[in-house]
C-alpha cells in the first residue's frame, strides 16, 4: 500500500525525470594546433524515458554551446576633427567568447520566454552589462554591438531547426566552431522541451585548448615574457643570419 502511494507520488511530482538526455559527442576536446582552422563538433543523443512516448506537445531539443564568459570593453567611434576616433566606451561585465544555439524548430516555438530567462539560453540573455557609466546614453546599444560584431564574425550562431529528431528519441546536430576560438571550458547544455517548457536538461563541457607548440609559446609569453622576448630575438637573428649565409653558399655554388 505504502509502496503504491510512493509510486503514485513519484509519477505526480516527477514528470521532469520522465524523459532524460543521454548524450554522445564526436569529441569533447578541441585542440588548437598550429594549423587549426576551426572544428566541427557532432553532438548526438537519445531521450531515455520510463513512460510511453507522448505525442503532443511534440518533443523539442535545444543545444547551447558557450565559450568562456569574459568581460569586454566596447568602444564607439564618432567623428572628431574630421577623423573617426573612439570616443565612448562601456565595460560589459561578461559575454561569452563563443555561443551557438541549435534548435529543432524556431527558437520562440521551442522555448518560452520564462524558461529562456530562467535558464539563460538565448544569446542576449548571456550578455550582461550593469556597470555602464551614467554619461553614456543607450548602454543597451553597446551590448547589442557585442551581439552584432560576434554574430558577423561567426562567433555567435543561432541555428534554428538544425537539430534532427528521429522518432522523438534520437537527436543529432553539428556545430561549426570557427578558427578564432578562445581557450577554455565550453559549457554545453542540452534542453528537452515540450510546449516551450523545459522538461529536462543536461550539461557537459567541451574542453578547448591550445596544444603542443602553440600552448608552449603562449604560456611562455605570459609566464616568462623576458625569456620569450629573448628567445624570439635569438630565433629571429639566427634565421636572418642563417638565411643570408645559405644564400651566399648558393651563390658561390651557382
Amino acid at each position, binding site marked *: 500500500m505504502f509502496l503504491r502511494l510512493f509510486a503514485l507520488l513519484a509519477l505526480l511530482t516527477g514528470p521532469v525525470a520522465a524523459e532524460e538526455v543521454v548524450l554522445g559527442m564526436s569529441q569533447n576536446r578541441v585542440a588548437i594546433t598550429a594549423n*587549426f*582552422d576551426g572544428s566541427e563538433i557532432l553532438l548526438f543523443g537519445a531521450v531515455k524515458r520510463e513512460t510511453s512516448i507522448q505525442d503532443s506537445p511534440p518533443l523539442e531539443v535545444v543545444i547551447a554551446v558557450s565559450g568562456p564568459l569574459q568581460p569586454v570593453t566596447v568602444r564607439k567611434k564618432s567623428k572628431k576633427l574630421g577623423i573617426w576616433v573612439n570616443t565612448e566606451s562601456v565595460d560589459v561585465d561578461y559575454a561569452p567568447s563563443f555561443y551557438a544555439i541549435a534548435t529543432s524548430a524556431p527558437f520562440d516555438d521551442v522555448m518560452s520566454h520564462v524558461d529562456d530567462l530562467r535558464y539563460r539560453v538565448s544569446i542576449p540573455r548571456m550578455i550582461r552589462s550593469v556597470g555602464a557609466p551614467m554619461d553614456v546614453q543607450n548602454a543597451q546599444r553597446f551590448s547589442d554591438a557585442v551581439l*552584432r560584431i560576434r554574430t558577423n564574425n561567426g562567433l555567435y550562431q543561432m541555428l534554428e531547426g538544425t537539430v534532427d529528431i528521429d522518432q522523438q528519441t534520437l537527436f543529432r546536430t553539428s556545430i561549426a566552431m570557427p*578558427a578564432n576560438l578562445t581557450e577554455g571550458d565550453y559549457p554545453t547544455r542540452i534542453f528537452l522541451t515540450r510546449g516551450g517548457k523545459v522538461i529536462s536538461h543536461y550539461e557537459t563541457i567541451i574542453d578547448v585548448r591550445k596544444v603542443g607548440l602553440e600552448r608552449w609559446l603562449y604560456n611562455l*609569453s605570459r609566464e616568462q*615574457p623576458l625569456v620569450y622576448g629573448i628567445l624570439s630575438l635569438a630565433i629571429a637573428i639566427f634565421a636572418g643570419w642563417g638565411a643570408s649565409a645559405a644564400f651566399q653558399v648558393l651563390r658561390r655554388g651557382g
Partner: protein
Amino acid sequence: MLHCVTLTVSMQIYLPIAEVSVNAFLLLGLGGIVGILSGMFGVGGGFLMTPLLFFIGIPPAVAVATEANQIVASSFSGVLAHLKRKTVDLKMGVVLLIGGLAGAALGVFVFNYLKSLGQVDLLVKLCYVVFLGVIGGLMFIESLNAIRKSRKNGPPTKRKNHNWIHGLPFKMRFRVSGLYISVIPPLIVGLFVGVLAAIMGVGGGFIMVPAMIYLLGMPTKVVVGTSLFQIIFVTAFTTLLHATTNYTVDMALAVLLLVGGVIGAQIGTRIGTRLKAEQLRILLALMVLVVCGKLALDLLLMPTELYSLGAAGGH
C-alpha cells in the same frame, strides 16, 4: 550540367599570440613582396609591412611588436657585413643608440598609456598617415626633380656643411665620420627614431639616414652601416619591452614573415640593379603614397561598424 571543381590549397596557421588564423602562404607572400621591395630600394620595409599586417587583420599592437622583432632579424646580416667592411661609425652609433633606447622606452610608455585609453590603433595609424604622407610626397617630388635634372644634365646641387648645429655645446670628435660636433643633435635624432620604432614598428632608417646626411653631415659611406647598428639594438630593445609589458610579440608570425622576407630581399637586390635609381625612387614613393591613402581613407570615411570590442581590464 556544369561541374565546378575548385581545388583549394589551404594552409591555415593559427598564430599563438595574435590568436587569429591566417593563411601561411599569405604571410610568406607578404614577407616576400616586402622583402623584394626592401631589396630593390635598400629600405628596411617595416613601414610597408606593418600597415599591410593591419590590412590582413592582425591586431595593430601585435603587428607593431612583431615587426620590431622581424627588423632585428633582417638587419642582422647587414650589420655584420658593414662591420666587416668597417663602414660603421661605432662612436656615433653608440650616441645614436643611447638616444634610441631612451626613445624606445618613452615610445612604449606612450603606446601602453594610449592602449589603456583604447586609442592606440588611432595613434599608430595617424603616425603612419603623417609619416608615409610626408616621406612619400617628398620622395615623389625629389625623384621627379632628379629625373628632370638628369634630362637637362645640370650640375648637382651642393649641400652646406656648416649650419646652426656647429654652435651647440658638448662637442665630441667622431673620427670615422671625420666630424667634431655636439652630441645633442645625434641624441635627439636617436631619441626620435626610438619613439618611432616603439610606436610604429619600424627601424626608422627612412628618417635617420636623411637626418645623418643632411643634419649631422656624416659621409654617405658610413651612414647605412651606422644606422643599421643603431636600428638593430633599438628594435631588439623595443621587442623586449613589448614582449614583457604587452605580450604582443608573435614568434610564429615573425618567423613566417622572415622566411618570405629573406628570400624576397635576395630577389629584390637583383631586380634593383637592373633599374634606374630615379625610376626606383618614384615607384617606391607611389607605393608609400598608396598605403598612406588607404590608411587615411580608413580614418576619414565613416566605418561600417562604429563599435569595436576589446579585452577589458586595461584601465
